[in-house]
């Protein structure tokens, strides 16, 4: 189960992901993060402090957000990643593609 909250904070767009971003949670998460594609002039912070698991589908969502932000000249930061989730980024080779806070 996943809960996604989008908010503005200190001039940035923040997406808080809580729970497990497994394959089943992908469709609702894709809908929930749509505001991130509509923002202009703001960096994006994905707060993964309470994210317990990320699947390939979850990685694809983050990659899509990153591609869109790069096209617009913004940065994407991933914050508060647990060891398990960081290991997923590492073994798939994405750990140096994202910026981590």
């Amino acid at each position: 189960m996943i809960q996604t909250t989008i908010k503005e904070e200190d001039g940035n767009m923040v997406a808080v992901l809580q729970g497990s971003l497994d394959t089943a949670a992908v469709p609702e998460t894709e809908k929930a993060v749509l505001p991130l594609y509509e923002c202009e002039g703001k960096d994006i912070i994905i707060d993964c402090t309470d994210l317990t698991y990320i699947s390939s589908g979850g990685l694809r969502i983050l990659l899509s957000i990153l591609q869109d932000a790069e096209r617009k000249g913004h940065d994407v930061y991933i914050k508060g990643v647990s060891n398990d989730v960081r290991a997923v980024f590492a073994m798939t080779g994405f750990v140096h593609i994202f910026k981590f806070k």
Partner: protein
Amino acid sequence: MKYDLDPHCEMLMQQYRDLRPTLEKLAQEAYSLLRQELSEQGIYVTAIEYRVKKENSLAGKLELKGAKYKTIQDITDLVGLRVITFFSDEVDKVAAIVKRIFDIDWQDSVDKRKLHELDSFGYNSLHYICRLKEPQLPNDETPNPTNDPTRQIRFELQMRTALQHVWSTITHDTGYKGDVKIPPEYLRQFSRLAGMMELIDDEFSRLRIVLNDYRRQIQSLVKNGHLDEVPLSAGSFRSFLDLQPFRRLNMRIAAVNQAEIYPASLMSFLPVLESFGFETLGDVQHFIDDNSDDAYQLAISQLAITDLDIVSSSTALLNLCLVHVLKSGGGREGLKAFYDIINGETPANGMLADIIMEQASILSFMENKS
């Protein structure tokens, strides 16, 4: 504003004032056409400037030599454009384009680069006096004369290098072209400086040609597989990556979970390869050949127990580097140092190093290395 002009010059000034809107339109049109053409031809310049001569500047000119001009249209720099290039050979490229898009008044145009005497200073630019071309009917090369006043007025177009521009600005600023006659010893110093700047301009152009030739040589060596002869650098590594040297290993790793390979830049790994002491592309190729099987084993020891079906195209190189560090006896600290280069220093790199140490410990290449 009142100027101290005789009646003839007052008439010329009034003609200028009446013509002003046309001059603004001409300046904008000439500038837009030139900018667009340079862009389409892929010529990047440091600046394209334009201006309509200000009234007080015209008044100064008329005070000095107003009698020379019958009508205001005799003055060729009411509108001025300037193109500032990076290199001296680009001035001629810009000139070739200008000749194509504008009509040139060859009688009044001058190449000031050739004008100065051997014993005097002078480091100037190419000046063309131009007109906008008449519009052409479709499928017809014959210009179609119109009554458009912007086509009647000539404008000045200067083309110079950045160094020529600096020279022109500094000498103007120091007042050497001013009212006071400059003593010969100072003239000689200006002349020496002009000569040095001309040498620098020529040298930049020469170096650019030399570097382009060098790049082509490197690309050829890489393409023909002479990797041991190619020093490792950003340029050569980029050429090497065009050969997709990590593709086979990436596909082998991705096959474990039938994963999609997401394209990623590998240039950030160059400092890592340099830190390994690799000096040529040959060294990098040997590193791939010697470690591919072990890198595959390390990668699948992590991925095979998951259902992750997307991996970055950096996965192969990442695991090759990890294996190289471990086989060289780098241990946990070596792995952390590798992640510090790739990810930036962060405490989490220690955790990543621990995970790799644990997973690699059961692999065959780690025997006798714990």
